[in-house]
């Protein structure tokens, strides 16, 4: 007896898949024909030829060179550079704050643990966009005028135009100092590798930290002074109504970085807490029974095991921070979405290529992140029996 075709699993699978593909294909066909018709009716074009055309608008903050006459492609690059800058600084700050708050949450001190808990609850239960706007309008907008800037040692200035800090101006021979610094670091690593070998052979770790620090600091300073201190600092100065010189960071950038890193730090803190709590208490007790010092227990026994639990969601939060940096548009910081998907799109009218390029960038970032994460996960997993 053969099974009837209706209850044959293979036939049913083929049928359902054909149905799905047909549905998706119809949806695509419908959208594409409509889009083509609409675009020809409105005289729009979907090509990428506009990328070479001069964009003709200025960008307030840029990491890489950009002038008003530059092409749209350059605008795209400026946007990506700004987004990545926000992401990198935000991730570094969020990790530090999150680690501190996460450890505070586990503190045996009731007051510290309660404070950490309410910090987390308060900040992760309010919208990020609200926090960004509140930092911008509520804090950085209300700072004093440049004339009455908050002044830290005559080097750093904070006012409602932004944050001003000295910028380094390396001289001609500063490269030699850099080379000495890098060579020093390499030498320090060689010494450490030697110490590790001794540890394996004899069970004793030789004391090499002072030697390592000396190897990095002494040659660098020697070369620096021998070449005649080839590094000047450009200190910001009040000239008229504003500061000149140094590096200036606009208030929107400061507000964005602070809001992003504080918001993300709450999630990181919870991840750190969950990771440390996931290591069974028996591990701590076993370490203590073997006479391992508490500081070493944390470093060599708890943290390596907690890291397995912490790393994947942590990377996910880094990705979230990168995506959330697109909220910069609300306070006018020129990130990718703001300069590309908003200003350039409105000005050039090329909706389809611009949307595709923006989405392509974010997809690429998350694809790369998940690749890095997978390879790290494989290496970080301690071998289990």
């Amino acid at each position, binding site marked *: 007896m053969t099974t009837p075709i209706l209850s044959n699993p293979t036939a049913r699978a083929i049928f359902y898949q054909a149905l799905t593909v047909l549905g998706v294909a119809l949806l695509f066909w419908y959208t594409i024909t409509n889009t083509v018709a609409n675009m020809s009716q409105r005289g729009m074009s979907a090509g990428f030829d506009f990328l070479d055309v001069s964009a003709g608008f200025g960008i307030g903050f840029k990491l890489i060179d950009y002038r008003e006459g530059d092409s749209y492609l350059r605008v795209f690059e400026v946007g990506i550079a700004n987004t990545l800058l926000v992401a990198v600084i935000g991730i570094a700050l969020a990790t530090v704050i999150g680690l501190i708050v996460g450890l505070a949450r586990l503190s045996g001190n009731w007051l510290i643990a309660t404070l950490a808990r309410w910090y987390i609850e308060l900040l992760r239960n309010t919208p990020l966009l609200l926090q960004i706007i509140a930092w911008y*309008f509520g804090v950085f907008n209300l700072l004093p005028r440049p004339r009455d800037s908050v002044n830290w040692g005559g080097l750093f200035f904070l006012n409602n135009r932004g944050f001003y800090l000295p910028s380094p101006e390396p001289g001609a021979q500063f490269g030699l100092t850099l080379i000495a610094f890098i060579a020093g670091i390499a030498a320090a690593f060689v010494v450490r590798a030697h110490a590790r070998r001794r540890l394996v052979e004899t069970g004793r770790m030789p004391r090499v930290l002072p030697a390592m620090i000396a190897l990095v600091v002494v040659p660098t300073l020697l070369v620096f002074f021998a070449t005649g201190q080839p590094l000047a600092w450009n200190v910001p100065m009040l000239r008229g109504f504003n500061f000149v010189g140094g590096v200036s960071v606009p208030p929107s950038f400061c507000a964005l970085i602070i809001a992003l890193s504080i918001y993300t730090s709450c999630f990181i803190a919870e991840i750190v807490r969950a990771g440390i709590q996931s290591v069974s208490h028996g591990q701590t007790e076993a370490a203590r029974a073997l006479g391992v010092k508490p500081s070493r227990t944390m470093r060599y026994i708890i943290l390596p095991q907690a890291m397995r639990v912490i790393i994947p969601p942590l990377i996910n939060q880094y990705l979230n921070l990168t995506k959330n940096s697109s909220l910069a548009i609300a306070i006018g910081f020129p990130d990718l979405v703001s300069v590309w998907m908003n200003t350039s799109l409105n000005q050039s009218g090329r909706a389809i290529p611009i*949307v595709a390029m923006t989405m392509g960038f974010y997809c690429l970032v998350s694809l790369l992140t998940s690749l890095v994460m997978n390879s790290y996960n494989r290496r970080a997993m301690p071998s289990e029996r």
Partner: protein
Amino acid sequence: MADALIFQPKAGKPAPASTLGVAGWVRGNLFSSLPNAILTLLGAYIAYAFLSAVIGWALIDAVWEAKNRRECLDLVGRAGACWPGVKAWIPNLIYGLYPKDQVWRINTGFLVLAVWAVPLFLPWVRSKVVIGLSMALLYPLLASYFFHGGERDLLWTVLIALGLAGFLASWVIAIGEWRGEVRLLEGRRRWVVGGGLYLLSLLLVSQWQLQEVQTRVWGGLFLTLVISGFGITFSLPAGILLALGRRSRMPLIAAVSTTFIELFRSVPLITVLFMFNTMLPLFLPAGVEVNRLLRAIVAVCLFSSAYMAEIVRGGLQAIPKGQYEAAAAVGLGFWQSTSLIILPQALRIAIPNIVGTFIGLFKDTTLVSIIGLFDLLSMARAVGEDTVWLGLFIEPFFFVTMLYFVFCFSMSQYSFNLEAKLGAGQRR
């Protein structure tokens, strides 16, 4: 004979005074060592500085009665909050620019939702799943006419009547189960009762006409709730389907679901909102008008269903293979075993994360302010642009922040309790 020498144990010594009572707790938890004591003092200073600044600004030095911002500034300057501005704007913060004489419709609409939800919390009601599902599926039909109103064609009338009939039927079921008259709800009678209720609603709805209120003037907390409500009701079923699709053994279905999920999860919500805002009119035939609100709702729904799919997939992965095999062994097909055996367990595991996604969705609705909708956040910003209250930014932001916090925090606490209640059988 002398008294027998019997062993009389002495009473145990009390615990050292330093470990007892308030003093003992303070010693043990706050001042157990020098670094700990320093931390405690530092923490106490931070807590004091923060609380005294906030309470001083928001309550003690605040102005409660004033006609405009100038008056506030003359009274206390920037040292205290200027609440009259927020008070004057509260109707706008809640209802947006919805016509003031039509606001009763929003109130009634949400009241209907609350009344509809009451049977879900009554202990004697047993058909909670049916009532809950009918609410999720049919309430949007009723509510969209309630809030929007205006002319409607026959199809709309039929659908709105379905919403009203669902509301009536839920209460008929609830009352029937309370009175123990379940016979009315069994067999063929069920269809007669259902049909009767539907005809009644159709009659009511056909006589019913509301003034049109265009979505342009929707705003405030109302708009935030509408968008997140649509997002929540759409994303859970869509997420379940996508998760099942991604785990499917049919390669093409798995590929389509995976592509959808990964695409929407890897881009920020604001780019999805921008995309639908600029491209949805291009995707549809010329002449079809899609208003801004609908574009935002479509974007939010698709975006959140991709996230929900991953949450549900996490729950599905936690179900041991034996459950699938047992379901197959008793002869259940795919849909039966999924809906009766697998999903109830998977969703229970996933509840904390599902509620977490709902909270995220609720917070993310603030992004619609960037594409020009007047949600709660935009209304809060508008206060400071009102000529009477010019520059009043911090107070409305503070108020709105508290509002969001109350909503999100109570949602997360509710999920915490629900998790404890549903997990009762799992605990040993």
